[in-house]
């Protein structure tokens, strides 16, 4: 069983203040990334509604989705924190398999 100590610093009060501050800053980053997600979503919808050509729209839509997912993973799901090495390895491996599956089904299902 792992042992637990409430704080890691010799002076819990300083540590506490520092932590609260850091958490607050991080929360601000979360709100920023949320605003960005809303913004990206708006662009995506507007692009489709204004009827651009699909060869232009598709790559942009996928790029916007990709950025949103990165924001979601790295900020909301805290993958930017330390100790996510194994997590990243397995998530990217999964994403690679996912990509192969989707490419297959878009190319060699109908012949």
């Amino acid at each position: 069983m792992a042992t637990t100590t409430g704080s890691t610093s010799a002076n819990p009060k300083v540590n506490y203040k520092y932590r609260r501050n850091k958490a607050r800053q991080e929360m601000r980053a979360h709100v920023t990334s949320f605003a960005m997600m809303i913004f990206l979503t708006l662009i995506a919808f507007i692009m489709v509604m204004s009827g651009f050509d699909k060869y232009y729209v598709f790559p942009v839509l996928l790029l916007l989705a990709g950025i949103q997912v990165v924001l979601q993973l790295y900020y909301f799901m805290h993958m930017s924190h330390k100790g996510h090495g194994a997590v990243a390895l397995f998530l990217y491996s999964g994403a690679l398999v996912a990509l192969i599956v989707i490419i297959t089904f878009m190319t060699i299902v109908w012949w």
Partner: protein
Amino acid sequence: MSTVVQKKGFFPVLWDYLTTVDHKKIAILYLISGGFFFLVGGLEAMVIRIQLAVPDSNFVSAGLYNEILTMHGTTMIFLAAMPLLFAFMNAVVPLQIGARDVAFPFLNSLGFWLFFFGGIFLNLSWFLGGAPDAGWTSYASLSLASEGHGIDFYVLGLQISGAGTLIAGINFLVTIINMRAPGMTYMRMPLFTWSTFVASALILFAFPPLTVGLFLMLFDRMFGANFFDHTMGGNTIIWEHLFWIFGHPEVYILILPAFGIFSEIFATFSRKRLFGYSAMVFATVLIGFLGFMVWVHHMFTVGLGPTANAIFAVATMAIAVPTGVKIFNWMLTMWGGSIKFTTPMLYAVAFIPSFVAGGVTGVMLAVAAADYQYHDTYFVVAHFHYVIIGGVVLGLLAGTHFYWPKMFGTMLNETLGKVTFWLFLIGFHLTFFIQHFLGLMGMPRRIWKYLPNQGLEVGNAISTVGAFFMAAGVLVLIYNIIITQVRNERVGNDPWGDGRTLEWAIASPPPFYNFKQLPLVRGLDPYWIEKMEGNDRMTPAEPIGDIHMPNNSFIPFVMSLGLFIAAFGAMYQVDWRASDGAEYGWAIPVLVIGMLITIGSMAVRSLKDDHGYHVHKEDLEKDDEEGGRL
């Protein structure tokens, strides 16, 4: 200390096993049920060989033959080979990395019971209107046309046991990442642990496509969906892709742990460090990675076009490279070693040429143009039996002899072990070597009977004789197991005398908490290092302290039972709807009751806290004085 009192009598022991979360007992459960399904699949194989022994035979009818060959493949892959590998993974991996238990003891038990009930469900099809009959691959255009409930049993049974496999895979991954003893770095992990790690990663990514494929099949057959029905816009190739995106990594899920077992055996009985350890690790990871890039080689003749075929042909051939690295490393491990030919070592040595033969035909099949000739002939049957039996089954038999003392505290008889080995090895080559030529002569795969005077008689007769040799070998093994357990001669911690890894440093079988004090690992083959320095035990990495243990639980059994019950409801609601509600009125209620049992037990699990219990320091110390009976 009521929790650690020895259980006596049949029912207390039964209850103990039904509720256990101890990885060593779950290993035994996997071994027994995997062994049982191995015998069932073996009997089915014998029926196949008897039917084909002579031309124009009528030993079984065509329909029954289709059911038997389907169930032989499905049973052997999903219900025999994988669970038997899980048995050794459970028994050995936590010990090899110096852990007290797996990361999720409760889920470990759940994984087993899901597999068990899925397997039982699948096999109940024999008694409830007929088994699945569309081959283990169950291609959609064939299986959608299959009448009765056979395919439904296949879909639901595999769905349940597949969930169990996924859980087991995640459990091993987290165990290996998080629970290693102090000093056990990744590059000091024994090869069996490494191959378990990679195989578990493959399970994690390969089983979801199977889950989806089975869902689509389930929706098509039972709920009127149109995924595979081309008249409604569907596409039967989707099933083939999903099945093989799962199916090819599955082959590596089976073979990699077998490679791991052999790596341990080669090093142990050559009494030499494994040659090229880091190359072995790298090759294992590379095989796992490439395993995902080659599934289309099962579909060369579908007509996906020359580009797709070329890409996947090259990727397939590439796998021969890391596999070759492994073969040479095993041979160089033996080179200059002081070899002991024990039973496990005999299997290991025989494995090399057998598996290489299967690998070579694999590269032949990878040549897409040539595959048009080999496809769906006995050449393919010979090929995959050479890799599966020559690799996986030999590995399982070797592992059974090698790890038996660690799991049960008794030693299987060596003489009988060698008898099993020779009978099985001769029988195996007799059965399958000739099938290469039968295939080249044009005998199609999955054929029910063949006519006389086509040159197929002699080959098939030889093949059937070989099958009887294999069966005899298995019978000798069963006899060996029975007499060993009846004699019950206990052995010490390192019965082979040459153990290198941590599992041989503790008692056989180990106490339920495994390590009284977590060991300090000082390098690759930690127990060997200590022995070479004259120590008789591992240096502890911690003082004796309380040990936290998980509580036993009956919930995994109930949870799996609920799905088992619900599966019957899901299946017979088809008849209920077909009869406009006139018959099978119980189907929907049974579906609901089953799901309620499962969801209810999940709720109980999350609402009721389970903090486990502690084995106290004083009891551990007292136990030391009494000679370790705890």
